């Protein structure tokens, strides 16, 4: 493992123009080892993690129900956290499959592959290789692995359906998966797994589940550039900045079985989905929320009344601008099951929503209805510093990358 790591990184040094130095923090629910702290405990404040040389340049982090996948700039993937369904992809050597893992371990299946994209669902994982192939592992009991059956796998398995297609992105929800293909106008989005709430968008009929990918309806004349899935929700962003949602209705509105375009004059660039809300980022750095009526009041039963007016029409699920962010330019958004996180233009990380497990990182277990700044312990701000934030169901990761110009 060490040797191949050395080999990989020497190749990468030639490819990269700059060296990167990273710091990683985690906080929130931690009893499955998902925080990588070495303790199986919740953390209410950001924990600076030990620098691991093989994880020194994480390009993408994917956080699921209680596990984490990390893609490094060398195209390798590491996983840790809960592994009881095989979602860590470490295989079943020594009967380890059912074990959780509180330290990052490479998924050796991909030793001779280079990966470009990863996604973590509630209890399944998916990987896209640089050649556009899709691999899945973990819980398959709803067909969410896409192999045509309902089996679970503890090592990644190639999804044969896409063997002659070019996969760009995979997004894993609670019990379903969405795939975005490259250069395939009209048939770009596919869904598989549980479809009961309409989250696959493949039929107006009520569908329990499908185990083979099927084309999501409604994008025949639309170019999709990004997809999102979490809980029983699905979303897509088109090249012209429109947001489409399908699946479980927001604010207890009826489920939506075909992608529906949100009427809005804003140009959306990113959607981050929770289990009951959607966070949306516009090209101007504004943040909107869909279905946030319970966001930040989950621990307070008195404030949690049924939605004020139960709309019969999903089209009326109110889109609200996060007013507390007036004048703040946001560059990145992320959503956990019931909490939200963002990065502002000046490198501040803010969180709000449900806080019972410390997932807001504000030092306590309180809920917050408005975004609050997270303190990462020191204030080294630098114009060459880039922050990224990622949310799992009940936990959060922040990565600070210092971009140092290469000496060569």
């Amino acid at each position, binding site marked *: 493992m060490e040797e191949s790591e050395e080999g990989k990184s020497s190749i990468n040094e030639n490819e990269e123009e700059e060296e990167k130095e990273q710091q990683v923090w985690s906080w929130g629910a931690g009893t499955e080892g*998902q925080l990588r702290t070495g303790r199986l405990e919740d953390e209410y404040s950001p924990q600076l993690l030990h620098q691991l040389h093989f994880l020194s340049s994480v390009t993408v982090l994917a956080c699921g129900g*209680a596990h984490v996948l990390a893609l490094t700039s060398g195209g390798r993937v590491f996983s840790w956290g*809960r592994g009881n369904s095989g979602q860590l992809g470490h295989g079943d050597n020594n009967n380890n499959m059912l074990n959780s893992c509180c330290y990052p371990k490479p998924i050796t299946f991909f030793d001779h592959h280079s990966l470009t994209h990863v996604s973590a669902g*509630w209890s399944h994982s998916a990987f896209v290789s640089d050649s556009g192939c899709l691999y899945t592992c973990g819980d398959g009991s709803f067909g969410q692995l896409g192999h045509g059956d309902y089996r679970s796998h503890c090592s990644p398995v190639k999804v044969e359906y896409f063997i002659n297609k070019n996969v760009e992105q995979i997004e894993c929800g609670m019990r379903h998966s969405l795939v975005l293909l490259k250069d395939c106008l009209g048939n770009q989005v596919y869904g598989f797994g549980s479809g009961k709430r309409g989250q696959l968008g493949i039929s107006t009929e009520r569908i329990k589940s499908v185990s083979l990918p099927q084309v999501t309806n409604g994008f025949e004349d639309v170019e999709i550039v990004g997809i999102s899935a979490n809980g029983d929700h699905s979303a897509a962003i088109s090249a012209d900045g429109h947001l489409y949602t399908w699946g479980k209705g927001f604010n207890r509105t009826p489920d939506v079985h075909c992608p529906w375009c949100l009427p809005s004059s804003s140009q959306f660039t990113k959607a981050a989905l929770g289990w009951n809300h959607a966070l949306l980022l516009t090209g101007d750095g504004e943040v909107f929320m869909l279905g946030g009526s319970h966001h930040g009041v989950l621990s307070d039963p008195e404030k949690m009344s049924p939605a004020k007016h139960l709309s019969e029409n999903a089209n009326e699920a109110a889109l609200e601008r996060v007013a507390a962010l007036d004048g703040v330019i946001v560059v990145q958004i992320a959503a*956990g099951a019931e909490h939200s996180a963002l990065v502002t233009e000046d490198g501040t990380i803010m969180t709000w929503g449900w806080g019972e497990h410390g997932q807001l990182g504000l030092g306590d277990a309180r809920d917050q209805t408005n975004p609050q700044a997270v303190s990462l312990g020191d204030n080294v701000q630098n114009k060459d510093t880039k922050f990224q934030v990622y949310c799992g*169901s009940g936990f959060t990761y922040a990565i600070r990358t210092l971009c140092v110009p290469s000496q060569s």
Partner: protein
Amino acid sequence: MSYDDVEIEDMEWNEELQSYTYPCPCGDLFQITKDDLELGEEIARCPSCSLYITVIYNIEDFLDKKSINKLEKSKQQPVAVA
């Protein structure tokens, strides 16, 4: 207030926990045992947090024949079954 209403068919039987389970947003699982269901309990709790869900099910699916007969008998009499 209940976090969500979940149909029993959407819950998964967990042999290890001897319970029906459903994902909790904290990362753990809402759980309810067959015994609880037989007793008419409809709240499934998460052992790790304060949230709970309401389980939607037909109690008769969880009673053995003997107790179904009993229930039917009691239904014939003008006694309210809670």
